[in-house]
C-alpha cells in the first residue's frame, strides 16, 4: 500500500519545503544555541548555561515592565488602527467625486519609511520648537509648551497615536479589498426589506468583512508587536526605560550592553508569544469560517 503512495507530489514540494525550513528553522536553532550559552560581546559562544539567560530576564524588572508595556502597546495600536480603519474604508468604498484622490491620500503615508515618519514626529513633538506645541498654542488650547517626550505619561500615548496613524493605511487596504468583494445586490435586497444603514452594516458588512478583519488583526499584531522605529526614534525607550517595549529592550541588551545571550532569549520569548497568539487566534476565529 505504502509503496503505491505517489511520491512525485512530495518531491515537487521538497525544494520549497527545504527552503522554508532553512529560512524559518535555522535562525531559531541558531538563536536557541546563543540563548543557552554564555556569549561574549562578539557573539563567540563560551560555556553552556542552560536556562540561565532566561532566568536573568525573569529577574529583571525592566524586562517584566517591557513585557506588559508591549501588550498595552500592541492592543492599543492594533485596536485603534482597526477602529479607525473601518469607518475610513467604509467612506472610501462609497462612490463619491474625488474618491480616487482620497484613496491615494490615505495610502500615501504608507509609502514613507517608518523611521522617517518617526523622526518627523520627533521634531513635531519637540518641546521648544515643535510644530504640535505651536499649533496647540495658536489654537489657544494650551498656554505653555508641553514637553511631550520628557515623560512616559505623555510620550507613550503619543507613540501609540503615531503607530495607529501609520498602521491605518495598510489596514484600510485590506478592508477595502474585503468591501469590494461584497456583492451590491445584498444591500439592494436588504433595502427592499426596509433595513437601515446601521442594520445593513451589522448584519451584512461586518460578518462578510470578518475574514479580512481577522487577517488585518493578525498581520498588524505581529507587525506592531515587533515594531522598533517609532519608539527608538522618539525616546529610545527612555526616560529611565519607561517607554521600552520588548524589541527596544532587546536591542539595548544586545548591541548597547553586549549581552547577546539574554538578547537572544528575549527574541525567543517574543517568538513564542507571537506563535501562541497566532495559533490560538487562527484556531478560534478562522476555522469556524471554513
Amino acid at each position, binding site marked *: 500500500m505504502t509503496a503505491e503512495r505517489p511520491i512525485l507530489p512530495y518531491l515537487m514540494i521538497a525544494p520549497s519545503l527545504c527552503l522554508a525550513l532553512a529560512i524559518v528553522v535555522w535562525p531559531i536553532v541558531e538563536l536557541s544555541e546563543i540563548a543557552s550559552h554564555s556569549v561574549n560581546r562578539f557573539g563567540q559562544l563560551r560555556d553552556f548555561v542552560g536556562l540561565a539567560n532566561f532566568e536573568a530576564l525573569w529577574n529583571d524588572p525592566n524586562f517584566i515592565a517591557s513585557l506588559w508595556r508591549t501588550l498595552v502597546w500592541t492592543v492599543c495600536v492594533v485596536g485603534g488602527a482597526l477602529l479607525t480603519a473601518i469607518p475610513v474604508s467604509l467612506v472610501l468604498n462609497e462612490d463619491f467625486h474625488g474618491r480616487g484622490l482620497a484613496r491615494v491620500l490615505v495610502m500615501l503615508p504608507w509609502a514613507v519609511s517608518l523611521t522617517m515618519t518617526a523622526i518627523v514626529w520627533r521634531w513635531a513633538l519637540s518641546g521648544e520648537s515643535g510644530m504640535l506645541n505651536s499649533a496647540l498654542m495658536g489654537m489657544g488650547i494650551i498656554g505653555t509648551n508641553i514637553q511631550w*517626550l*520628557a515623560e512616559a505619561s505623555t510620550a507613550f500615548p503619543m507613540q501609540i497615536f503615531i503607530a495607529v496613524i501609520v498602521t491605518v493605511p495598510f489596514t484600510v487596504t485590506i478592508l477595502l479589498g474585503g468591501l469590494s468583494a461584497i456583492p451590491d445586490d445584498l444591500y439592494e435586497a436588504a433595502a427592499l426589506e426596509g433595513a437601515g444603514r446601521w442594520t445593513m452594516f451589522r448584519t451584512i458588512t461586518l460578518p462578510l468583512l470578518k475574514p479580512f478583519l481577522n487577517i488585518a488583526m493578525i498581520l498588524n499584531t505581529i507587525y506592531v508587536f515587533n515594531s522598533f522605529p517609532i519608539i527608538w526614534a522618539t525616546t529610545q525607550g527612555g*526616560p529611565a*526605560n519607561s517607554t521600552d517595549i520588548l524589541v527596544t529592550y532587546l536591542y539595548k541588551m544586545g*548591541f548597547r550592553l553586549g549581552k547577546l545571550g539574554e538578547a537572544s532569549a528575549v527574541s525567543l520569548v517574543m517568538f513564542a508569544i507571537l506563535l501562541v497568539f497566532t495559533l490560538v487566534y487562527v484556531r478560534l476565529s478562522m476555522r469556524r469560517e471554513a
Partner: protein
Amino acid sequence: MRIASHWAQRTVRVALSGVALLALSAAAEAGTVRVTVAEYSAKTGPYFEKVAKDFETANPGTDIQIEVVPWDSLQQKLTTDISAGTNADLSIIGTRWLLDFVSQGIAEPLDGYMDQAFKDRFISTFLTPSVMDDKTYGLPIAASARAMYYNKDLFQKAGVANPPKTWAELEDAAKKISALGDGVYGFGLQGKEIETDVYYYYAMWSHGAEIVEDGKSGLSSAGAAEAAKLYKRLIDEKATQPGVTSYSREDTQNLFKQGKLGMVITAPFLSNQIRDEAPKLQYGVTGIPAGPKGDKGTYGVTDSIIMFQNSKNKDEAFKFLDFLFQTPQRVAFTVNEGFLPVEKEEAQDKHFTDSADLKVFTSLLPDARFAPVIPGWEEIADLTSNALQSIYLGKEEVEPALKAAAEKADAILKQ
C-alpha cells in the same frame, strides 16, 4: 531533528568559512588592507578615500579598501563581522570598548611594530588610554574634550559680566538669563540618550567625586549627591530648559545655536557647526565651572584605530597606519572634523594655534578624565543615566536613587 539541524548548521558554517578563507587568501595575494572607518561627518569618507589613494600611489601593489560605517551602527557591524570571522584588518573603535577587544584576544598589540620615535609623535594624554598591561593596542585617531560655550548677547542682556568660574556663579547667571523669558534659558542640561551620564560627571568631578573609587562606584559618595542636587535645583528653579529628559546632546546644541541657551557644555565640534549654521551667534568658550573646593574636570574622549589579531596583512596594515599618522594627514582630518590634535607636531599647526576656541579646550586637558577602563562600563553608564532621569523627573529622591544605582554598579564591578 537535532542531528539534522546540527549537520545543516555545520555545513553552512563550513561553507561560510570556506568563502571567508577564499576571500582572505585572495586578499593576501593582492596585498589588500581592509579598513573599517567610523563616519564622523560627511567629510570622513572622502578624506579616507583620498588618504588610501595617496598611500597606494606611494606603495604600488597594496590595495586599501575603506568601509565607512555610521557611528550608531559601528558596534553592531563589528560584532557581526567578528562573530562571522569576516572583520577587516584595521578598524576605528571607541577606546572605551577596547578592553573587550583585548580581553577576548581580538586586538593585536602594536608594540612590535612601533619604535620610540613613533610613540613620541603622540601627546601622551591621548595615547595612554589605549595602553593596557604595558602593551599598546590602539592609536588615538580622534580626540576631544569638553568645555562650556556661552552666549555673549544673553549674558549682556541679563547683566552678567563674566562667564561663571564656579557652579555657584553658574547657578546665579543661569537664573538671571532664564528670567529674561521669551523662550530663553540659562543652562542647557542634557537628559536623554547617549552621554546623559557624562553631562552629570562634569558636576560630579567638580564636587570631588569619582566614577569609580577603589574598585567601587562613586555614585553613593557625598560629592555625587551634591552634584545631582545641584542639577535638580537648576531644573526646579527653571534655570535650565524645561523637560530636560527630552533633550539629547544634539537637541541642547541646537537650542544653543538658535540663541536660546545661555550656557551649554559640549565638544569642540560645536564651533565648526556654529561657523557653518549660525555664523552671527556671539559666543565664547570657557572652562567647566569649579566646585566649592576648586575641583574641576572635563571629559576626554578618544577613538582608537586597532589592528585585528586575525589580520593576514599586518605589516602592510601597519605601514598604512604609519602613513595615516603623518602630520599632513592628521591636520587634514582634525580640521575637517573639528577635533583636537593628538600629535605634538600636528598641534603646532597654525590651524590649532590660531584658534581661540581650541586653545580653551587644549588648556583644559590637564584636568581631562576618560571613561574608566572596566568591564561592563556601558551597563554602568546606562544605569547611571536611568537614575539621573528618575531624579530629573522628580520620580525618585537624589540619595536613594544614587545609592540603588551604586549598588547595581558595584555588583557589575565585582564580576
